[in-house]
């Protein structure tokens, strides 16, 4: 151990530091481009409190975390810590952040990770962990992993290491931010993590947990705020803190109120019983991501698979297109399945123009003739037609695809998939990062496809999307289908949220970047 290593942390130190700990945020505003991510958010936290943060995508959750951790600066507003003006810098020692994916050094041991970032003494000296560091590990119950390489440890150990690092780094740590820390953990591992979070509270620190799992928020936190439209939309504590209330608060004020123009799904509802477009039995992923006894989609139907990240819903959609290793029986009506990933970084060809992007999935017989020679004039006609048909707003077909807005890029992506004339369109989060106007247009495009006899299977994490788009919602949780809902029967998004929460054990939606 070298002299440069920080003084050993102690439990007493924390309590002392946390005396009278009080974090006040007043009227915080932050804009990214045209998006107002925070619009006057006000919030007060005191030491010893466990605050849960929930909210729909793009509501400002992540921005709030960034402001507190110093990863971003508010445009205006006040931040006070213990009554004094406070401007955290990135990597602020008083605010350790535990991320969804632990951001540490996999090739160092657990104990060595506590030292990373500390300077050694001179060139030749590599700092080595001392008793004080093992003490911190011991408190978190991971001392036995001290000499293991971090990369060999389980995710929960990695995340506990991140906490340990925060503790060892200074007596100063007071506010602990957990940004969806357990989305990849098992239930027991989560419980272990939550116990440690509770212990941090009891030492007088502030613990902030951002999560999309409503049941966890309800069970762990003292108080849960719902961030909505860049502010605190609701605050639940004590008796009012229930999953049902929370599920409702999450979707209030979203598009659900407007109730997507009466014709939402009427035409689908009228369609009588039709043939299976797709039917699977004993459909199992090789690595266990999902195990589905039976799943079927009718022609002319839009089905939403609802689930969180890691629920297996995404993999299930991909498996329909043959992109996952699966065992089981699949029956598909004679027409093909086309798959479109959620991330436009995975669905569009960045060097292509708008016109090329629209045609990228087409093949011989359509844009190419004998010898594979491109039919240049036909390509032009097709591209122009798709651009019009799918309402793509672009200066010209020559424009690079990257220059379009997110909504128009997504329209191009969907157009290119539908241009293949598939029988079944399997896609993920059809309107992720898309503006409201384009959303409505994309829903219309998908409905028209279904009305023409196509089937759509969409993995969705946004309930407002499920409500607008689908006739049937199939809830996926822990790799299993836990129930199905007739969306057309439900009056509003709030009741959909409650129903889904009931079927999946407290899920509402995944977190996403607040700006696009």
């Amino acid at each position: 151990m070298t002299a440069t290593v920080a003084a050993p942390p102690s439990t007493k130190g924390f309590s002392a530091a946390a005396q009278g700990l009080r974090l006040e945020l007043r009227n915080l505003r932050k804009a990214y481009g045209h998006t107002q991510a925070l619009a006057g958010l006000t919030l007060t936290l005191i030491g010893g409190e466990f605050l849960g943060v929930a909210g729909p995508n793009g509501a400002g959750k992540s921005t709030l975390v960034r402001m507190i951790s110093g990863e971003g600066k508010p445009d205006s507003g006040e931040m006070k810590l213990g009554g004094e003006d406070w401007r955290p810098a990135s990597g602020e020692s008083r605010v350790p952040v535990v991320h969804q994916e632990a951001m540490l050094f996999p090739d160092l041991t657990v104990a060595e990770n506590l030292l990373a970032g500390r300077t050694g003494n001179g060139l030749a000296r590599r700092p080595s962990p001392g008793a004080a560091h093992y003490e911190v590990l011991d408190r978190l119950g991971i001392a036995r992993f001290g000499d293991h390489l971090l990369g060999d440890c389980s995710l929960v150990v990695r995340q506990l290491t991140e906490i340990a690092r925060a503790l060892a780094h200074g007596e100063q740590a007071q506010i602990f931010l957990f940004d969806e820390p357990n989305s990849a953990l098992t239930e027991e591992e989560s419980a272990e993590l939550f116990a440690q979070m509770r212990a941090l509270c009891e030492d007088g620190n502030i613990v902030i947990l951002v999560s999309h799992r409503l049941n966890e928020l309800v069970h762990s936190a003292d108080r849960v705020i719902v961030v909505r439209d860049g502010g605190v939309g609701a605050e639940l504590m004590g008796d009012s803190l229930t999953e049902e209330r929370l599920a409702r608060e999450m979707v209030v004020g979203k598009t659900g109120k407007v109730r997507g123009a009466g014709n939402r799904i009427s035409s689908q509802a009228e369609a009588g019983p039709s043939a299976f477009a797709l039917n699977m039995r004993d459909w199992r992923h090789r690595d266990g991501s999902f195990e589905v006894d039976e799943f079927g989609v009718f022609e002319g139907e839009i089905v939403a698979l609802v689930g969180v990240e890691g629920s297996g819903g995404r993999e299930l959609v991909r498996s329909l297109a043959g992109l996952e290793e699966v065992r089981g029986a699949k029956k598909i009506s004679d027409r093909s399945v086309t798959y479109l990933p959620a991330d436009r970084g995975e669905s569009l060809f960045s060097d292509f123009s708008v016109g090329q992007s629209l045609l990228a999935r087409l093949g011989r017989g359509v844009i190419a003739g004998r010898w594979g020679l491109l039919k240049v004039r036909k390509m032009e006609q097709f591209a122009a037609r798709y651009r019009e048909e799918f309402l793509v707003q672009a200066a010209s077909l020559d424009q690079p695809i990257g220059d379009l807005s997110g909504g128009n890029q997504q329209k191009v992506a969907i157009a290119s998939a539908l241009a293949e004339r598939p029988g079944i369109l399997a896609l993920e989060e059809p309107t992720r990062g898309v503006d409201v106007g384009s959303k409505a247009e994309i829903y219309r495009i998908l409905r028209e496809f279904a009305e023409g006899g196509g089937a759509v299977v969409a993995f969705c994490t946004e309930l407002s999307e499920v409500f607008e788009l689908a006739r049937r919602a199939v809830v996926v949780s822990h790799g299993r289908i836990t129930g199905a809902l007739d969306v057309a029967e439900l009056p509003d998004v709030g009741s959909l949220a409650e129903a889904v929460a009931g079927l999946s054990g407290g899920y509402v939606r995944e977190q996403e970047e607040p700006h696009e």
Partner: protein
Amino acid sequence: MNSVLRNAVRNPRILGLLSAIVVIGVIFSANNPSFISTRNILGMVRSMSSMGLMALGLTLVIIVGELDLSIGSIYGFAAMLTGTIWVDGVHIVPALLVGIAAGLVIGFLNAALSNWVGIPSFIVTLGMMTVVYGLSLLISGAEGINPKYADPPADPGQLSVFRALGETRLGWNIPIQVIWLIGAAIVFWVLLHRTLFGFRLAAMGSNPVAARAARLPVTRYKFIVFTLGGGMAALAGMLDFSFLGATDPSSGQSLLFPVFAAVIVGGATLTGGKATIVGTVVGALLLAVLNNGLSIIGVGAFAKEIFIGGATIAAVALDRFTSLKRSKAGQA
């Protein structure tokens, strides 16, 4: 002009390269008027032809996002193999076919190792470069071959057939290698810019993940481009062998840099998705002009290397500056 495919042609990079060639040409001509003579220009284009043929093949490999470092060695090996078995008594026609086949097979092996075993093509072809060079040394005993003066000498009839491939002069004294280059460039232009194959290659290189999601035949196409690249290198080696009348096992080893430089200067990005045939040809031309002009004005062989290396870096640096603005605007 077709608006879907247009950006392949209307490329500021190519206009820039052409003006650079003109400017450099004027400077060289001012220094030494013989630079601009028909004779010199034809000679210059001939001397770049083998580099150009290889660069055409490499362009397809690079646009799909892969690399092939073994082409220089393939060039030397194909010529050496043909020469060796010819001198050993095999007729020149099958000997030539064996040489070309060797290039195709090595290209196929590159593809197999990178696609089936999953080794990055940089490493596969880096290894293959040395393996194939070793093979050249092995079969030749590290000695060059000149069939005309071999023991026994090559059959004069066969020799004239062979030499005709690369040495013939056509009307207006045009070397046949120039025609080989122009012909190949036209074929590759059609292949890359006017066939479904080329359209999809660009898509795959632009975003391999999306290409797989769209179920484009990524693996099959990679096999084709590597195999074709190996074949082009073998053809280039054969034509130079024919032109010179002799070959030695280390020929081609110095070609790797100019071939890559031609493709890169021509506007291709090593990450794939972006490359044009016109760019590659013009890039090769720029390098040939520099090479030839610097020789004519007497800079000397050593300083010449410095200029050519520097020009390659400068061309890419210039591209970074101009494309940086665009990519920033393009982020959504």
